[in-house]
Each structure stands twice: as C-alpha cells, then as structure tokens.
C-alpha cells in the first residue's frame, strides 16, 4: 500500500515536473517578436514553439480544447508536420499547384481536427522582385492558401495571414534552387 502511494506520488510529481519543464520550454517570446506578430524569433521559418517536442502549458491545452493525453500527443505529432511543410509557388505567381493543393489538404485536415488551433499563414517571395510589389504578392500567396482552406470547409475564425514579401528568405543563395525555396507559404501555430 505504502509502495503504491509512493509510486503514485512520484508519478504525480514526475508529471508536474514534466509539465512545468515543458511550460518553460514554451514561454512565448516578447510581443512583436513572435511568429505571426513580427516574426523575428530564432527558428522562424523552420518551425516555431510547439514543434520542438515536449508539451505545452495547461492554458494552451485548454485554449486548444484538448484534454486527453492521446489528443495531446496527436496534436504534437501533427503540428510538427503542419509547421514544417511549406507550399511553394512559381515565379511571380500566387496560384496553387497540384502538389501545393495536396499539402494544403493535409492542412485542411489539421484545422478541421483541431478547430481551435490559431494559425498564421505567412506569404513569402524570392528576392528578385521589388519590395512593395513583393509584399503584395506575398499577401496574395497567403490568401490563396487561406481561400483554399476555407473553401475546403476549414473555419475562417482562427486563421490569419501575414506577408513578409522578400524580407524573410528561407534560403539566401543567388540561384533558382534558393529562389524556389523562398516562394512559399509557411504555416505557424500560435497556440
């Protein structure tokens, strides 16, 4: 009996420690610097908080409306892929290619599965164009994805867009391979 309660106590303690540790891992960066609110934190473009493994704080789970361990694990696994898979565009275009649509179908499934997830769709361009036109082009790219998700039944409520034009390239080379990597929409989870 004493053994069991000790074990249980230790388990609870471990869980608490685990939760707090994970909270620290996922402290939001300063206002204006988080992705979707300014986008200057490290790792931007390659995956944000929540994608690095570990869990989220209690408040976050409540915001997401997820309570069971299984749901949480599912979220963590799928959110990695959600944030790490970008869709790509042709030069000076904002129409969706077939491969892009296939990736977007997975995004649609994700937002339907987790309707309380807050998503920012970032639109980006390669650096060959001029600044202001690229800001507008990035916006159109983000909107193309947004419209596709909404038309596929995703809820508009928790989706926002932001354009970074050519300001936040993923690759810095001066060749088609790099440029192609920059003409993208990137998806960021804000909770």
């Amino acid at each position, binding site marked *: 009996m004493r053994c069991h309660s000790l074990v249980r106590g230790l388990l609870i303690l471990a869980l608490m420690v685990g939760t707090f540790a994970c909270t620290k891992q996922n402290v939001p960066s300063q206002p*204006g610097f988080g992705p979707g609110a300014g986008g200057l934190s490290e790792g931007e473009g390659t995956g944000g908080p929540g994608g690095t493994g570990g869990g989220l704080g209690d408040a976050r789970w409540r915001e997401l409306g997820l309570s069971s361990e299984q749901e949480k694990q599912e979220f963590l696994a799928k959110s990695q892929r959600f944030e790490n898979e970008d869709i790509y565009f042709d030069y000076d275009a904002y129409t969706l290619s077939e491969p892009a649509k296939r990736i977007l179908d997975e995004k649609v499934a994700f937002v339907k599965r987790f309707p309380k997830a807050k998503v920012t769709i970032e639109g980006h361009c390669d650096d060959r164009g001029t*600044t202001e036109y690229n800001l*507008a*082009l990035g916006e159109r790219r983000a909107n193309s994805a947004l419209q596709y998700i909404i038309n596929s039944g995703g809820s508009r409520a928790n989706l926002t867009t932001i354009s970074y034009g050519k300001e936040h390239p993923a690759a810095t080379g001066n060749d088609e391979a790099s440029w192609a990597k920059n003409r993208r929409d990137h998806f960021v989870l804000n909770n």
Partner: protein
Amino acid sequence: MVQKKQSIAWWGFLLIVGAIALAWGEAAWAQRVTIDITQPSFERIPIAIPDFKRQAAEQTQLAREMGETLANDLDYSGVFRPLDPKGFLEDPQTMGLTAGDIKFPDWRRLGADFLVRGAYQVQGSTVKMEGRLFDVVGSRMVFGKVYEGETRNWRLMVHRFADEILYALTGERGVFDSRIAYVQAQGKTKEIYVVDFDGGNPVQVTRDNNLNLSPAWNSNGTQLAYVSYKEGGTKIFAINLMDGAQRLISGHPGLNISPAWRPGSNELAVTLSKDGNPNIYLISSSGEVIQKLVQGFSINVSPGWSPDGKRLAYVSDETGNPQIYVFDVSSGQKRRITFSGNYNTAPAWSPKGDWIAYTSLVGGRHNIAIIRPDGGEVRQLTHGEGSNEDPTWSPDGRMVAFSSTRGGASAIWILQTNGTGVRRLTQSGGGQELPDWSPRMSGR
C-alpha cells in the same frame, strides 16, 4: 530686396558676356537662363571655390570644410564643375574678399567662369559666415550674403548659400537642404534613417527594433510615414521629426503598405488588403478611409502622386505581370502606360510633372527608367550595374535617388536625369534601400 535686384541686373549683364566668352556652338546665354540640364549635351559651368577665409582663431578646420561642402553641393547639382583647389595660385587665407582685391585675370586663366569667396568667424557657439559670388569674366560681384547662427548649423548655412548661387545663375533654387529618408538594415532589423543631400549627417529616426520599410515624407517635411511589423502584420505609422512622437495611421487586417502623402493635403494613398485584395485607398492622416481609389481582383500597389495631387501612378498585375498605370482621381479612369518589358514597378512622379521614374526589369536586372506620364517616351537611366530599384525624385525634378547593389551591398545612389553625375549617397555598412526624397526644407 537689394540683393535680388543685383542678381537680376547681373543676369542681364551675363547675357551678353557669356555668349562671347564661352563660344558655344549652340546655346546663347539667353537659352542658358532656362538651362535644360536634362540634356546630355549640357556643359557644366566651371567654378572656383577656394577655402573660406577664417577671421578668428577658432575652428580653423571649417575653412576647408565649408569650401568643400559648397563645392560638393554645386557639383552634385549637376550644373557646376568645381575646379581643383590644388591649382589655385593664392593662399585663401591672405587672398582678398571683395572685387577690388581679386585678381580676376588669374582666375580667368585657370578656366573659372565664376569664383566664390567665403569667410567665417566663430565666436564660442555662434558663427558668422559671409559668401560672395563673382563673375570672373565680368570682373564683378554677382551677389553677397551673410549668415549667422549656431556653429553646429554651419552646414545648413553653406547649403543655403549654394541655393542662392544656383538661384542667381539658373533662376531656380537648389535642393541642398533637402534630405533623403531610407531604410537601414542592421542585423535582423530594419530602421528608418535620414541623411543630408550631400550624404552627411545620417540620423537614425526609428528605434523600433523591428522590421520597418517604405519611409514617405509629408508635404512640408515634418513627418515620415512608414510601414512597420512592430505590432504584428504590416501597419502604417507616422513619426513627427520635430518631437519624435509616433502614432498609428493605418492598422487594418491584412496589408497596410506603400504610404504616399497627397501633395498639398494631409491625405495619403495606401495599399490595403482588408477587403480581400491589395487595393489602393485614400485615407486621412488619422487613418479613416475616405475613398477606394483603385480596386480589382489583381495586385494594385505602390501609389505615386502627380505633383498636383489629381492623379497617381501605381502598379497592377491585372495583365498577368506588374505594369505601371495612371489613375485619375476625379474621373476614376485608369490607363496603362508601360508596354516594354514584363516587370515594371515602383513608380515615382517627378515634382515637375514631366516624367514618371520607375524600376524596370531589363535583361534580367532591375534598372531605373523614366517615362512620360502619357507613356509617350521612355529613357533608361541605369544599365545593369547591379540591381537598381525604388527611384525617388529631388524636389527640383532634376535628380533621382535609388538603391543599387552596384557596389556590393545595397546602398543609396543619386543620378541626374540626363543619366550623368552618378554618385553614392550612403556609405555605412549593412544595406540601405527604399529611399524617399524630402521636399525643400526652406519652403520656397
């Protein structure tokens, strides 16, 4: 006033002397009164500017610095060719200041058409500066001016004097006290800076520690609108340059970009995507939407007002790639003007109204071009030296500042609209881009 009368009188005198002395095949002096310096055939006027004469023991280095600043201003105007001071025969510190003391034949022999004699006297924190312009051929003074003020404002005095020289000889003031706003990249952030016309005195204006773009001067040079991500998403702010006060102008969902103040008013044209598509709106300086100007289902961005505020040039990709259009506000009519090349962006309308500068992709590189507002004539001003983008006009419509990577990292460069007189404006590290040229500060 007396000085003005003198200028006009000497203008008349020069009319006769100039034609004989310079022996141009083409232009008589009468034509020189309205010098068309946009023509490549224009020949700069040789002018001698020795060091200023110091009349007190303080700040001895200003003797050379004042002379050099003035020479640079006149050189940068595209109208003058300052002679090399190394060829001057007399010591500027012993040389005379008035017509009676000047050996005009010596200066004629050096090839100078005009001579400037400056002097200054520093007393503590104030300085008194005198400047006289002499017609070398006519052996007479054209005009003289005295300036007094705080020593730390000596550059401004020199700039004002340069303005007067240009006014006396061309009938139009210079732009020497104008300034150019631009974006300075520093690490991961971009901030708005302002620099003098001659590249001196770069000053950091924003300290948002974020991504700031697209500075835009208002009509009297007291405010800069700009785009910032500091509150999440692109929003347009304005900063008052007198007191540093900042305010949000436009923060609708989606894009709030490319602010352009409407000449002679407190309104701005901006690009907003709040209704689902990037379109151009007219807003008040407190952000209320007055009118939707350009709308459609394609990208409409980058408004650039005509000097009378009745039309604007802008970029639209409604034909599939970006081209320049002109929109008339009262009629609501739009008209495409660029038909050469498949990527034309960033229009800027000359304050003289006679040209629209823009960025044109030619041979895979961005170049600065100018086009008549009716699309009639096109001239390419840069030719593939790096990437040249985002032109902005000087207030006199004679020069264009733009960003160029011809020197490596992006910097602000300036050229005359006849394509000559190319000079680099910004010298700092990091990168400089997105210039916007202020109005004349002295208001005339």
